[in-house]
């Protein structure tokens, strides 16, 4: 078993006529939380979508757990025990919160079969999910939808969790809960790949970090190193903290 759960080597992605990713190299070490940072439009979301098979890599190789998944279809990738929270949250607004959760729980045939203790844990992190259990998800507020999206991804244990900007639109208190949640998941052995704009979030959770710009990874290393080096932060992310 290799050290890295997920590796991307020289991945290129085209969307229609646009060439978006220009040879992304990325490794996600097993059991760690990897942060993917970068300016708007750097290609983070595209990278995650390419991993999930939602865009097809036109060149390069993606390996998960030693298997080449570059050409696999999305459902196959997801079935290899991968959970994904997309940037637009992917809430099924016609369905109730309960039904949304049920679909994410692949093992359960009906709501009664979902893991109770795990649900309790999710409810304690995101009270809104419990409160609106039987409501159509489309009626939730922006932040509540975000909570539901993350809850869905963690309703069953997964080996790899890929999350695109989970803190967007969340109140500070809930962001704290979410940080706790990721910390607990990590402690239970889950590998996490996280895109985040919230730099505090990144600093508190990240083990390793990769920074993208213009469709390539321009820096990778440990989070600690980046957090301590303000110059590096400035040149990579264009901000002073």
């Amino acid at each position, binding site marked *: 078993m290799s050290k890295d759960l997920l590796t991307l080597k020289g991945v290129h992605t085209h969307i229609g006529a646009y060439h978006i990713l220009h040879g992304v190299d990325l490794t996600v070490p097993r059991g760690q939380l990897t942060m993917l940072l970068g*300016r708007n439009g750097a290609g983070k979301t595209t990278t995650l979508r390419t991993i999930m098979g939602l865009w097809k890599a036109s060149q390069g190789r993606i390996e998960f757990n030693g298997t080449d998944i570059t050409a696999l279809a999305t459902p196959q990738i997801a079935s290899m025990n991968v959970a994904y929270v997309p*940037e637009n949250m992917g809430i099924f607004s016609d369905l109730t919160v309960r039904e949304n959760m049920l679909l994410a729980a692949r093992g359960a045939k009906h709501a009664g079969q979902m893991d109770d203790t795990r649900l309790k844990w999710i409810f304690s992190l995101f009270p*809104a999910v419990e409160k609106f259990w039987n409501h159509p998800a489309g009626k939730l507020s922006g*932040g509540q939808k975000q909570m539901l999206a993350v809850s869905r991804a963690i309703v069953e244990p997964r080996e790899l969790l890929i999350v695109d900007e989970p803190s967007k639109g969340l109140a500070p208190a*809930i962001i704290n809960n979410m940080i706790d949640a990721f910390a607990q998941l990590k402690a239970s052995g889950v590998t996490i790949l996280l895109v985040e704009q919230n730099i505090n979030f990144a600093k508190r959770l990240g083990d390793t970090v990769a920074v993208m710009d213009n469709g390539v990874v321009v820096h990778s290393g440990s989070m600690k190193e980046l957090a301590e080096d303000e110059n590096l932060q400035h040149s990579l*992310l264009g*901000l002073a903290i």
Partner: protein
Amino acid sequence: MSLLATKDLTIRFGGHVAVNAVTCAFEPGTLTAIVGPNGAGKTTYFNLISGQLKASAGQVTLDGRDLSGLSPSQRTRAGLGRAFQLTNLFPRLSVLENVRLAVQAARDGAHRRGLNLWSIWSDHRALMQRADEVLNEVNMADKENELVANLPHGDQRKLEVALLMALESKVFMFDEPTAGMNAAEAPVILNLIRKLKQDPTKTILLVEHKMDVVRELADRIIVLHNGTLVADGDPATVIASPIVQEAYLGIAKEAA
């Protein structure tokens, strides 16, 4: 005199009271931040003001005029401008066309808004000129012929603001304008808001979860919690108040 005011504004969804008797007034030349936990009712409050939702009770007044019963479009024409939490533009039209539509909407009288069919014979160069001006103000003139769908996220948010400027609204309502923007991009939007703030005739309402932004921009903060207005005052006091510390910032850890 306050420009915009709400009195006992309330809405119920079934048994759930999303906004509960909120009474509040907003002065011209000020920026008021609205904060509160997720699901507190901030967006819903905006929806009630701009007319997207019908209030169960209470009223909204602008310049002393009661807006109850007016449609969203009528409220916009009365001077309420609103940007949306999720970007909401005309994706397959060009940047210039997007702004021009707002300019056209701002012109008084049915004639200008295109309803008078004789206007099909008239020239509409003036509309284009004004649209160009607005795009210059937000530094997007170079992208005027791009389709909005092809713009990066940040530019789309900028365009949202440009539309409000073109509408020449008196009240500007921003719902998390920087959501999903990183620390390097967000300042562009914030600068635009800052620029608007300098106009003493404009009233600005801002919903935002990033406390550093709120702290820097707001003249005043109001706090919604479970639909009720629970705090109102200058930024420092409100942020320090126990309700914000606990329910919102989660310092004492116990969230909605």
